[in-house]
């Protein structure tokens, strides 16, 4: 029950994009069509899950026993960047089709603040390993949900008769603001 409420909170109530305003760059950049939104969502899920597990073990097995908690941020960035780079090379070599759907989005995620946010949150909230797994799957699930919804809306907006000055990104920002307001209505469910 606790895990379920943790997952629901991460997906809907504390959605990273709409309540914490993290990862906005790909949110506006890669949401022009449905297919790339799905690809980006899957890549984010994979990276966050892998990076969270690695940083979790790194923190509790190496940093904490040696009293190096204060170097958390810099080691996490280092590890996440290398992990993403390595994964990209691996996918590129062994699966060309997977690289087409996933791999091209990976460099975009390396410096994405969502990844670091989840890795940090797992430590600061003192999650157990199981809770870490749930959290680092639920946060990107929420990200993907919002990204896909937003991509569908933007595809429709292309054909809509928006005033010329608002075409493109301005109307997208307004749409995102309205979505954030709609999602804030879910704040009471947990």
């Amino acid at each position, binding site marked *: 029950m606790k895990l379920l409420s943790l997952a629901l909170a991460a997906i809907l109530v504390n959605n990273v994009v709409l309540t914490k305003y993290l990862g906005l*760059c*790909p949110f*506006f*950049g*890669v949401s*022009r069509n449905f297919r*790339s939104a799905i*690809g*980006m969502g899957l890549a984010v899920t994979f990276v966050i899950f892998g990076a969270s597990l690695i940083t979790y073990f*790194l923190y509790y097995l*190496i940093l904490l026993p*040696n*009293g*190096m908690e204060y*170097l958390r941020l810099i*080691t996490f960035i*280092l*590890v996440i960047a*290398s992990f993403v*780079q*390595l994964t990209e*090379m*691996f996918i*590129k*070599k062994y699966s060309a089709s997977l690289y087409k759907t996933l791999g*091209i*989005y990976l*460099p*975009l995620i*390396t*410096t994405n603040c969502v990844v670091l946010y989840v890795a940090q949150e797992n430590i600061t909230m003192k999650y157990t390993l199981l809770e870490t797994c749930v959290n680092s799957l639920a946060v990107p699930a929420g990200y993907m949900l919002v990204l896909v919804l937003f991509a569908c809306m933007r595809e429709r907006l292309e054909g809509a008769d928006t005033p010329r000055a608002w075409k493109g990104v301005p109307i997208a920002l307004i749409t995102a603001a309205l979505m954030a307001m709609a999602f804030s209505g879910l704040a009471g469910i947990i």
Partner: protein
Amino acid sequence: MPYMKEEKTVIKVFVIMFIIGAFLGAMLMLANRFLAVKEDKRQEKALEMLPGYNCGACGYPGCSGMIAALLSGETDTLQCAPSTPEQRQAIVDYLNSEEGPDGEKLNIRSI
């Protein structure tokens, strides 16, 4: 003496960080050697000429996505909001003058 203890901690931290960094660096180096894939040589050169922010403002996933789209003929317009017009022109000139693996030149333009 208390400062001796502090000194030891600092050295230990340095060593541990060095090991982590060296390990990751070695992994990437090995991966780069064994997992290398042959690419269109224009891809890498043109990628270096872009700003490398991976901002996604062009609508493609990252800078490499933009170049890949140009090389595959998916689009004929180089879109890159963060770069200056001179930078864009340099990339357009390069891609229009260099022959690809099939011996054909591209014909692209800038925004």
